C-alpha cells in the first residue's frame, strides 16, 4: 500500500530504514502555507486509488531494475491535509550515497508526473483550486 489517509510518520520511516546499510536519502514533502503568492489554509489530495497504487508499484519496480542495490519506499497521503503535514515520503536506502540520492530524486520526480493524484488548494480568501502544474487546462476555477 503506497497511499494512506493517515498522517505520514516520516520519522518512523527513517528509523526503519536506518536498520539497513550504507546511505539513506529521504524526501518529505510538506504542505506549505502559500503557493505562487497566495496564502493557503490547507489542501486535499484525491487519488484514482487502484491506478495510483499500480503506478507507484511500476515506478518502484522500475527503480529496482535500474538500481538493483537500492531499496525504495514510498508513502503518499490522500484526503484533507493541514499546513505542515507531510504529503509524501520517499525513502531510498543504498550501499552508496550517489545511488540513494539518484533513486530518491527519480522517485519523487516520476511520482509527480505519472501517478494519478490531484491536489486542491484552499485559499485564505475562501476559494479553492485544483492545481495544474502543466497549466494546460482552462483558467483557474473558483467556487
Amino acid at each position: 500500500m503506497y497511499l494512506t489517509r493517515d498522517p505520514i510518520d516520516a520519522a518512523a520511516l527513517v528509523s526503519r530504514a536506518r536498520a539497513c546499510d550504507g546511505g539513506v536519502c529521504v524526501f518529505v514533502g510538506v504542505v506549505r502555507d502559500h503557493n505562487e503568492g497566495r496564502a493557503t489554509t490547507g489542501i486535499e489530495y484525491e487519488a484514482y486509488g487502484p491506478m495510483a497504487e499500480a503506478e507507484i508499484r511500476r515506478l518502484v519496480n522500475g527503480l529496482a531494475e535500474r538500481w538493483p542495490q537500492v531499496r525504495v519506499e514510498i508513502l503518499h497521503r490522500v484526503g484533507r491535509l493541514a499546513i505542515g503535514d507531510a504529503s509524501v515520503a520517499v525513502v531510498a536506502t543504498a550501499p552508496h550515497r550517489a545511488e540513494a540520492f539518484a533513486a530518491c530524486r527519480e522517485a519523487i520526480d516520476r511520482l509527480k508526473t505519472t501517478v494519478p493524484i490531484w491536489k486542491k488548494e484552499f485559499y485564505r480568501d475562501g476559494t479553492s483550486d485544483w492545481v495544474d502544474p502543466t497549466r494546460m487546462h482552462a483558467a483557474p476555477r473558483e467556487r
Partner: protein
Amino acid sequence: MNVKLLYFASFRDKAGRDEESRVLPEGSRVRDAWAALASEVPDFAAFPAMPPAAVNLEYAAPDRLLRDGDELAFLPPVAGG
C-alpha cells in the same frame, strides 16, 4: 458494448458526475470515447488536445481499442507529491 467511465478532480467538477456506465459502438477507441464526451461537455470541447487516458488502471494510447467491461478514465493534470 459497455464501458465504465470514471471522473476525477477538476474533470468530475466539469462533468458533474464521478462515474457512469456508457454504451459505445463496437470498435471504439479511446479517442472516440473522448470525442463523445467533448461533444457533451463544453469545458472538455475547449481542450486543445485529448488528456491522458487510462484503461484498466494503466495509461493507454488514444488509438487503444476498447472492450466490453473496460474501465476508462481521462486524467486531469496530476499534482501529487
